[in-house]
């Protein structure tokens, strides 16, 4: 499909989904609206994560750090400034931390980068816990000024839409091309004129800004926050899983997977928490083995190929069985003759 047509298709789908999401609280139950809010949170987190990590193939596990920074910023700032300013400040602080973190770890690749981002997340969490206990003399924070539920819903929806729109824009920009080049062969991209360090740092900060803003917006949902809640590594892991299962290099993959995960989470987590975790694990294994491009890479041809492979496997097995039966019969005949 020509690039311009793809752009129009993407924009139309985004506009239609946004319209549907805007109308949702007016006719759906509170439970569904709450489910949608979780869904938007993961769409924003996974899309923005995939924007940098999917294109550049730098596996960051620092999402929960940026989310937590945003949440704490909002908890502290909401008493002094309006709602949107607090959310913006959360994004800004998370991006600032990402710039510092990026300067320290973005020269590493692969597992080293992933482990270090996770280590830094833990460092921030424990440092904040220590600070709260020793200096502030508290374990967590109670959010006394909380905006209306509808405001939170609209803010998180706006962040999800903005994350997808940014993703559309970046994938068509020089910046996106540079990230894709870094993901494909970083040194080659350098020799073709890409200043990889600045591109990576900017991408990392952009991802962090979204995570920070989402953290700031979602913090009010809990009304009480402490470091183990908002810096929960599971937020980061789940973001990564959603993006990978959906298709980290695709635009709509993280959105599709975020919807599936939110539904799974709400239906399974409360009743069968172990089953939920197992479902995540099984989905990831299946995707890695059979669908490395993620759910968004599924096409009719994929199903046709699977069907063809399965039939082929079944036919070979039957032929093997028949061959074995034939051999066994011959053996029996020989034995009978000998007797």
């Amino acid at each position, binding site marked *: 499909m020509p690039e311009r047509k793809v752009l129009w298709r993407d924009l139309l789908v985004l506009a239609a989904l946004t319209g549907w999401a805007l109308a949702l609280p007016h006719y759906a139950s509170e439970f569904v609206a709450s489910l949608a809010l979780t869904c938007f949170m993961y769409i924003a987190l996974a899309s923005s994560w995939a924007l940098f990590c999917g294109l550049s193939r730098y596996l960051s596990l620092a999402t929960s750090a940026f989310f937590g920074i945003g949440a704490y910023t909002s908890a502290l700032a909401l008493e002094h400034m309006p709602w949107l300013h607090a959310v913006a400040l959360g994004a800004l602080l998370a991006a600032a931390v990402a710039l510092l973190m990026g300067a320290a770890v973005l020269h590493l690749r692969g597992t080293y980068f992933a482990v270090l981002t996770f280590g830094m997340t833990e460092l921030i969490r424990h440092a904040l816990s220590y600070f709260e206990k020793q200096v502030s003399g508290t374990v967590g924070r109670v959010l006394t000024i909380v905006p209306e539920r509808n405001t939170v819903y609209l803010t998180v929806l706006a962040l999800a839409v903005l994350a997808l729109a940014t993703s559309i824009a970046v994938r068509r920009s020089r910046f996106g091309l540079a990230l*894709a080049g870094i993901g494909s062969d970083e*040194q*080659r991209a*350098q020799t*073709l004129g890409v200043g990889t360090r600045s591109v990576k740092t900017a991408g990392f900060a952009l991802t962090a800004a979204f995570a920070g803003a989402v953290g700031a917006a979602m913090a009010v949902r809990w009304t009480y926050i402490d470091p183990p809640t908002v810096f929960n590594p599971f937020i980061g892991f789940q973001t990564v899983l959603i993006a990978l299962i959906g298709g980290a290099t695709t635009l709509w993959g993280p959105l599709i997977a975020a919807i599936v995960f939110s539904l799974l989470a709400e239906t399974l987590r409360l009743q069968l928490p172990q089953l939920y975790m197992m479902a995540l694990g099984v989905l990831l294994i299946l995707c890695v083995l059979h669908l490395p491009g993620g759910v968004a890479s599924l096409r009719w041809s994929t199903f046709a190929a699977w069907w063809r492979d399965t039939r082929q496997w079944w036919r070979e097995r039957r032929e093997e069985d028949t061959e074995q039966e034939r051999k066994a019969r011959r053996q029996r005949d020989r034995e009978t003759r000998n007797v």
Partner: protein
Amino acid sequence: MSDVAGPLLEARHVTVRFGGLIAVDDISASFGAGELVGIIGPNGAGKTTFFNALSGVMVPTAGRLLARGRDLTGARPHRYARHGIARTFQTPRVFAEMTLAENVRFGLRFAGRRRRAETWGPAWLAAWIDRVGAPWPWRRRPGVSWLLRNELSILNVIGLAHLADMPAAAVTPSQQRLLEIGMALATRPRILLLDEVAAGLTESELQDMAQLIRRVRDELDITVVWIEHAVTTLLRHVERVLVLHQGRMIADGTPAEVVRNAEVIEAYLGDEMVEEGVA
């Protein structure tokens, strides 16, 4: 042609050490505008390491690197690319998921966009302007050939325009080697460093590659520095040869001078090869 007098790229006493091993030992060389230079030497002579230093991929342990008089020692590879130094790698390194056109567009959108093509518009218009001469804004600007004006024209130069929409992973290794040259040309370089681009090619492909390299120098006004193991072909096409042995440069001269150099014969060419008439 270069708008600055003096060498386009100069290495001054460049040394690269890996722990106790000296891969490149105090090499000084300069490459001027319009040159076609070959670098030969046995395996492990330090040819590729020298290239890595020349293109910023590796920071030399000692010595300086100057591009048109500007010191680039220690700079990152993208700065070398922006200063008009492009390179290929020994094993083709193309962006496998992208199409050939996208691969070439990559260079044009980064290092290449700093230097505009001489003229714009379709090839017939550019050819006509060349013939009759034209006033501003169509007159030739010094620097980049109009053959490098966009991805399709570059794919035409390397002979892969018919595969423009194919993914790079789907083309043959020899086409990937050509594509690598196309990607490097897309940065609109002043100097092109080619690292064994003819490795694994058949005899006819080797001749085509040599013709392409000559064309790059002659028609695109790009200085070419070419590392190759196919010595006979290389010596037939280049005008100057550097010979490296155990990290040192043991000869720098015309092919005729180099094949008569006793140290080169002993270290690399051997008597038989010289008798067969490499030059």
